[in-house]
């Protein structure tokens, strides 16, 4: 029972970790929590669905198409809307991302309707293998592996590529980065594209478990935020760990205490963490200068 809950918690947690990663990447560069993240992922998943089911392309083509779409969407939103805000403060940036959220939600419900669809996936959710007393489906294993692989790639990206290092520089000090010849505006766009693609992976891994409709990402968005807050909004590693911890805690709560109120755990964690350690478990405390 316990092992089972932990294993499936890790599998869900890896999805939360992906969403949290996507948010933290944007938060570190633009200093705005992206409330449109969930809807960006949802609409990319719908694009994959359309290519796959309506037009009948193969999995590889559809997924690559969806990634290209996701990247283009991220760049588009950053370039067309976020960059236009004059003298932005936090409230107006948050409002702009909420605006994205509503536009994308409306577009998706207009185009694909509210009825629930089954998202086909090359890995089955029903074939299982046994690990000790726990049962784990191939899809869960795939989710775990894909997430870990993606995190490893991100690590390599931020450590060894020029773009990744420029991104880190922009996050630390945009002005200094610009003085050193980094095109911070372009880095911003790339950040949004990267984040949107990570979100799309999460959406496509989530869709086969849940059913695909415009509300797909509403709750996972909150879970992603909870994971990011838990681990710390300013560290990538922390956010990823936060996702796994949240997934396990949530599943244990659902298994031992109350299945009905499982989805409130995320909110409780947000409030508790923010009350006792607002910077998150794995981030340094940050104090605002007067």
């Amino acid at each position: 029972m316990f092992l089972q809950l932990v294993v499936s918690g890790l599998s869900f947690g890896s999805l939360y970790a992906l969403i949290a990663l996507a948010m933290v990447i944007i938060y570190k560069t633009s200093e705005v929590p992206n409330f449109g993240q969930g809807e960006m992922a949802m609409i990319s998943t719908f694009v994959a669905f359309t290519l796959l089911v309506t037009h009948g392309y193969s999995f590889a083509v559809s997924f690559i198409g969806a990634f290209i779409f996701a990247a283009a969407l991220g760049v588009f939103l950053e370039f067309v809307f976020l960059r236009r805000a004059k003298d932005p403060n936090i409230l107006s940036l948050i409002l702009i991302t909420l605006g994205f959220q509503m536009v994308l939600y409306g577009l998706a419900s207009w185009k694909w309707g509210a009825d629930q669809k089954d998202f086909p996936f090359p890995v089955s959710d029903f074939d299982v293998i046994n690990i000790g007393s726990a049962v784990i489906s191939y899809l869960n294993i795939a989710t775990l592996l894909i997430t870990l692989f993606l995190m490893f790639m991100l690590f390599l990206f931020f450590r060894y590529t020029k773009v990744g290092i420029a991104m880190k520089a922009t996050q630390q000090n945009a002005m200094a980065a610009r003085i050193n010849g980094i095109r911070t505006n372009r880095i911003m766009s790339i950040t949004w594209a990267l984040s949107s693609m990570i979100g799309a992976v999460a959406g496509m891994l989530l869709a086969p478990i849940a059913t695909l409709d415009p509300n797909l990402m509403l709750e996972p968005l909150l879970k992603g935020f909870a994971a990011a807050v838990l681990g710390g909004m300013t560290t990538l590693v922390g956010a990823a760990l936060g996702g796994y911890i949240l997934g396990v805690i949530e599943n244990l709560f659902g298994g031992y205490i109350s299945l009905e109120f499982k989805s409130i755990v995320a909110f409780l964690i947000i409030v508790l963490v923010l009350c006792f350690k607002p910077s998150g478990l794995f981030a340094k405390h940050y104090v605002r200068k007067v």
Partner: protein
Amino acid sequence: MDMKRDYYEDIQLLNSKILWFWFIMLIASLATLPFLLPNYHIYMVNYMAINVIVTVGLNILVGYTGQISLGHAGFFAIGAYGTVLLMTNLHFPFLLALVCSALIAAFFGFILGLPALRLEGPYLAIATLGFGMAITQVIGRWQVFGGRMGLEAPDLSLGPFVIDTDRQLYFVIVTIAFLLILAARNMMKTRVGRAFIAIRDSDIAAETMGVNLTLYKTLAFAVSAFYAGVAGGLMAFLLGFINPSSFNFILSIYFLAFVIVGGLGSIFGSIMGAVVMTWLLLTLDKVQELPYLGAVLVSFSERWMNLAGLPNIASIIFGLIIILLVVFEPLGLYGFWIRTKIYWKTWPF
């Protein structure tokens, strides 16, 4: 002309005879309005008045105190469910139930205000977002609240009067809205209102000047939640039926959109924002019935989109309005109004 010579002139409700005249005209026209309008429009005006209450309350929090809330649908739901449950289970009279459930909402607002003491900007937005979603979840799962099926509003009577049409409900809703707007307007002129504004401009500076941050931040949340609670209680009777899905996250964003469109930190702006946006919302709900535009949209949806999803166009338009206003006119309709007024005051210069 606008010079104030002492404090009592500043806090006066209306400072000239002309304003008194218009004030009385306003009351008179509000009182005669329901006898002139057809039924559907009265429903619409009721809807607007309820949204005005929420928007004024939310503006006290967002516009005047500078705290963000993405969870106002939660307070709205508490007000609605509280009023209905108190009336059906405990047989409270309507007004008492309304005030009690608004106080419950205010209590939740106070609790949500506590973490707000340590949070700012993005973190507060996330916490309030979580609160709104949690409330909807709890209501949807708990049998006391009717679960997913929702609850039906009981019969409404106020003393000897039985209220069962929109026209009768109009007097209840608009009177309450009117009183709450006056209260908000007066509160902003007092010590409390000035403390809110000081916190918005700089909380650290306000604290050094002796404003008690704990008290006033939680108070702002509580007052704002109280307004949302009252509005929720009234909404239960306007709709006649409430279920958890009517209080989702999107509703919270709608409320925020009303505030932004009206203009942050202006009560008059909130009224304009809520009225205009509610009209837009109710019109867009039936977008296919609009002349010309409706037919174009229907054929466009049939060709490219999905006809069943056409009402979701409201969400697209709201989102675009939020983004465009934030980018181009952060003061909202109120800023537009002020500029027009100044233009005509100083015309032709």
